[in-house]
């Protein structure tokens, strides 16, 4: 047995071991910071094994670095891990962001450090577990685990009095749909006798999970709803701005986006291809609306973090739009954009965190004129903004362009209208991002920026931010390096849905009457 078959286990459990280690180490001086940094760096190095040894010639749809052991014989739960083009870069991204999260928390978290870094590492375990699990039960365990450290991080390390409220809101928003998700998972097990994702996907492709289309439909909705809240998809984003506003920077960096989006791609599309296809027009609409809605509300915010929160809603909506078009461009772009959201959003929240550390506020009205005082911060801020608004040769453009051009190619009703609506996002995103830059950095000095003298970036902060900038540029000019694996996954999903469209009773293109007669469950 080579390392290839245990690498995923190593990646997932190094942070867990690290959390245990931190638990027994004394919380003195900078022990916690250095310990967490070492662990997260180690994890990151381990994740790099995946792209280095990824086999691009493997059959499409196969999982690599897989390991499959029976865990509990009845019910048949397996310890089944594996990676394909869909999950590989997400794992690397998770590994990449964690050390940066530690660096950015270095000074910001100055009390109860032990608790903070343990929770932070547990959160990472959960995320990595979600990306590598191919057994539904195992996956669900990680999914639920991901809730707890985050809720505690918000409740304990939130910046205002509202932190508990925000934490509970986040918890309930995520927990209740997850409970329904569990019901659906158990229902699937009852019907098929397996939690194994590849097996279930096989059944789904053969249409043999259940003859009861109404039940199948409900199960698919249970899956989708749980994921949609986590993404969040408009209008299920009620928790987002409160949670982001409260949570410490390192937690915010991983709060939204990738877990839910990955889960939709992997589980909703894998197990419920027909239902996903049918609900696509609605999701495309929600994606397009979410883009404009998030950007517009961001435009009228006074609080930097809430602005970024609504911006996040817009950015994850781009992914939603892309993946539900079921075109290769839309799926590839959507997956790419999921990475971009993690990188661009992560950088933005780090920079906002730096400002907060210096000036103790997120209120834009108290800033102003900082460009002359903080030349490095403004430089990085502008670069991040350009990535977020989708300036070509930075990463955001590649994903966004593919998503929108995929939306234009979609075969669903009204897709041209939704594409046009979504594309107005490029105007609105630029508007709120540039407004933010102007308010914070340009013009005359504001209340806080004149009262407080703060230093520009120190070495640690440079170290946390420049790697992100390098990745933005690299992913902007050399996208095929990442896209190769992603394209394999995107193409597979697109082809699967093409076959649904051609075989399934009336595709969307045919008359609506036939559709209503044949369509989903009543």
């Amino acid at each position, binding site marked *: 047995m080579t390392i290839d078959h245990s690498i995923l286990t190593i990646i997932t459990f190094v942070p867990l071991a690290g959390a245990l280690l931190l638990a027994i180490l004394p919380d003195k001086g900078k022990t916690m910071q250095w310990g967490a940094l070492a662990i997260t760096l180690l994890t990151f190095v381990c994740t790099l094994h995946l792209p280095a040894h990824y086999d691009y010639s493997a059959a499409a749809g196969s999982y690599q670095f897989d390991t499959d052991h029976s865990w509990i014989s009845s019910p048949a739960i397996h310890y089944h891990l594996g990676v394909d083009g869909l999950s590989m870069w997400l794992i690397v991204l998770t590994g990449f962001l964690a050390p940066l999260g530690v660096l950015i928390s270095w000074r910001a978290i100055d009390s109860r450090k032990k608790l903070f870094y343990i929770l932070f590492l547990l959160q990472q375990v959960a995320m990595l577990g979600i990306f590598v699990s191919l057994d539904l039960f195992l996956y669900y365990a990680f999914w639920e685990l991901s809730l707890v450290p985050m809720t505690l991080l918000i409740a304990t390390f939130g910046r205002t009095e509202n932190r*508990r*409220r925000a934490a*509970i*809101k986040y918890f*309930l928003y995520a927990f*209740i749909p997850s409970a*329904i998700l569990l019901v659906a998972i158990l229902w699937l097990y009852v019907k098929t006798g397996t939690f194994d994702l590849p097996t279930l996907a096989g059944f789904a492709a053969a249409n043999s999970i259940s003859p009861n289309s109404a039940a199948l*439909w*409900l199960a698919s*909705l249970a899956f989708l*709803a749980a994921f949609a809240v986590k993404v969040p998809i408009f209008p*299920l*984003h*009620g928790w987002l701005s*409160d949670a982001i506003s409260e949570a410490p920077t390192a937690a915010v960096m991983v709060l939204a986006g990738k877990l839910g989006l990955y889960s939709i791609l992997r589980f909703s599309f894998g197990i419920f291809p027909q239902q996903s296809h*049918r*609900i696509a*027009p*609605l999701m495309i*609409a929600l994606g397009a609306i979410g883009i404009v*809605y998030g950007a*517009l*509300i961001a*435009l*009228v915010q006074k609080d930097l973090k809430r602005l970024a929160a609504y911006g996040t809603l817009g950015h994850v909506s781009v992914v939603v739009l892309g993946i539900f078009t079921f075109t*290769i*461009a839309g799926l*590839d772009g959507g997956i790419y954009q999921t990475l971009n959201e993690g990188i661009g959003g992560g950088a933005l929240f780090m920079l906002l965190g730096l400002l907060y550390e210096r000036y103790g506020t997120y209120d834009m009205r108290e800033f102003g*004129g900082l*460009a*002359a005082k903080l030349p490095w911060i403004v430089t990085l801020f502008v670069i991040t903004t*350009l990535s977020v608004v989708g300036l*070509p040769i930075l990463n955001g*453009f590649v994903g966004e362009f593919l998503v*929108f*051009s995929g*939306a*234009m*190619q979609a075969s669903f009703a009204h897709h041209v209208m939704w*594409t046009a609506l979504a*594309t107005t996002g*490029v*105007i609105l995103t630029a*508007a709120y991002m540039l*407004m933010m830059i*102007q308010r914070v950095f*340009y*013009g005359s000095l504001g209340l806080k920026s004149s009262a407080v003298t703060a230093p520009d970036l120190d070495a640690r902060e440079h170290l946390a931010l420049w790697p992100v900038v390098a990745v933005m540029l690299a992913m902007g000019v*050399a*996208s*095929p390096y990442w*896209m190769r694996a992603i*394209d394999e996954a*995107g*193409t597979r999903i697109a082809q699967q849905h093409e076959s649904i469209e051609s075989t399934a009773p009336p595709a*969307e293109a045919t008359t*609506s009457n036939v*559709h*209503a007669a044949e369509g989903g*469950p009543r």
Partner: protein
Amino acid sequence: MMPSSYLWFIPLLPFAGFLINGTLGRKLPRAAVTAVALLCTAIPAALVAWLWSTMMAAGAPESIEIISRPWIAITGFHVDFAFTVDHLTLIMLGVVTGVGFLIHLYSAGYMAHEEGYWRFFAYLNLFMFFMSVLVLASSFLLLFVGWEGVGLASYLLIGFYFKKDSAANAGKKAFIVNRIGDFGFLLAMFLIVVHFGSLDFGHVFNAITVNPDWHGGVLTAIALLLVVGAAGKSAQIPLYVWLPDAMEGPTPVSALIHAATMVTAGIYMVARCHTLFDRSPYALGVVAIIGAATAIFAAGIGMVQHDIKRVLAYSTVSQLGYMFLACGVGAYTAGIFHLLTHAFFKALLFLAAGSVIHALSGEQDMRKMGGLWKKIPVTFWTMTMGVVAIAGIPPWAGFFSKDEILFRAFTSDNPLGKLLWAVGLITAGMTSFYMFRLWFKTFFGESRVEEAGHDAHHDDAHATHGVHESPWIMLLPLVVLAILSVIGGWVGVPAALGGHNEIEHFLAPVFETGATAEAATSVASHGLELTLAAVSVLTAALGFFVAFLFYFKKPGTASALAQRAPGLYRIVENKFYIDELYNVVLVTPLLMFTRLILAGVIDGGVVNGFGALSGATTRGLSGLTRRMQSGNIRSYAGWLAVGAAAVLIVMIFGRALWIH
């Protein structure tokens, strides 16, 4: 023969300059910053000259293509980093690198005392990088890279004096308005991907050429969306509003980006896509009408502005309108010709205006100038060349290119051709008027220069110098551009005036279809062409005469006239209140709607308000606990259940509705 891989250095050297000055510039001495910036633009200019000579050699290919690695590659679609140089690109490259280098030179003098000197040159080099990419690109998407990139450089440079709110606002406005144009450009590209499966110029245009039955329809849709993009970048109605504000940037920036190069990108793009536009008479008609309307509208505003740079800004908008008009009547060569001559004389005018401003220690208001011609003679004489050139007086450059456009408009198939010509002609008169108005007000009459120390500027190191001529490093570019403004038009002397119209032959391989049609008309109508030329020269002379009368002979005439129709004058002086109109009709309602309906009712009420609403209810009912969280747990849970149910209902039953 030069190996074509050298082409990469044309954009990459300025990029290297940007990186060096951008990262190290703060610590480098000014001389080093200047050296880096100048070298990184001079070498590309030399390379272009070399390229030019190889491509002009007998038997040289009509276009050179170089392809590097793929930029975006997915199943069924890919875009490479690939450049193509044909004669059109060559002209553009010549303008960009040549004028670009001269303006870099000028900037070394103009910006010498500015804070952030390194930053200025870093941005300027960044601009050169993106502009070269724009004109070299061999696909829509790579062109878009340059397109967005020059927009970025423009944003950074307009907002160079970022401490000034007006500059920061202007930069933001430029970027956002350009984004509105980009919205159209992007949609056009999405449609191209759907219908052609590629964004490569060669692929798309070949597909159109081999299908002569393709007309209108989706081609019109694509063309019109591209026009939206072009109108944004080239400051045409209704998206021109950003360009006058862009004058907040340092004057060399106005000369390079907002006159000679970037703003012509829209015209370049339309010309590049002529194969597409030729199949859509409707889209061409729209281009022509937008161009003519913008030309006369902006000229009208330019006639009453007092800020020397604003006059030139509206003049640029107006001249870009001419180029649009040219493209719209299918006279792409004439459009590019005017682009070329305009690059010379407008860059010259801006740089000369900059020299005037420099001489007056920052004064831009023409009401506070006057009588300067003796004090800054080199500036005066070079600027005079530019004024005469733009006014359309032979044999200065502007005459030939503008006349070509008017002639093509007159003889075009467009049913509105005669009207377009008339609008163009009137605009020519107005152009001549406002340029000579500027000339007289700046250089002649009584000096209205306020003494230094009079206002808040007294601490300015310059102010004590009094009026002074600029250093040689600024004057040299003026002289070169002045010479080009005189002779630049001679490459396009029409046969009717005994010339050979070299530029038309030069561009013939690019605009094949257009060129043959033009050749057919021009043989037939030499007499007509001469008549029209005479009419436009007379119009220009009339413009000069009126300006002479108003601003030299009887200086009070203009204000007396203005007092006769104060309402009209105020409307025009305030630029027809277009900015205010946009604010009232678009921006404010959108923000109000967002605040009240989206953020207030929907997000605060529906999405977020479940908790608050039911929290209150719970408190009222139970009174069991005052603590927020326990009340909220239940309310969130309840509302989440309701919400989930609602979503389920919508998903299940809404679907049937949805499909319809």
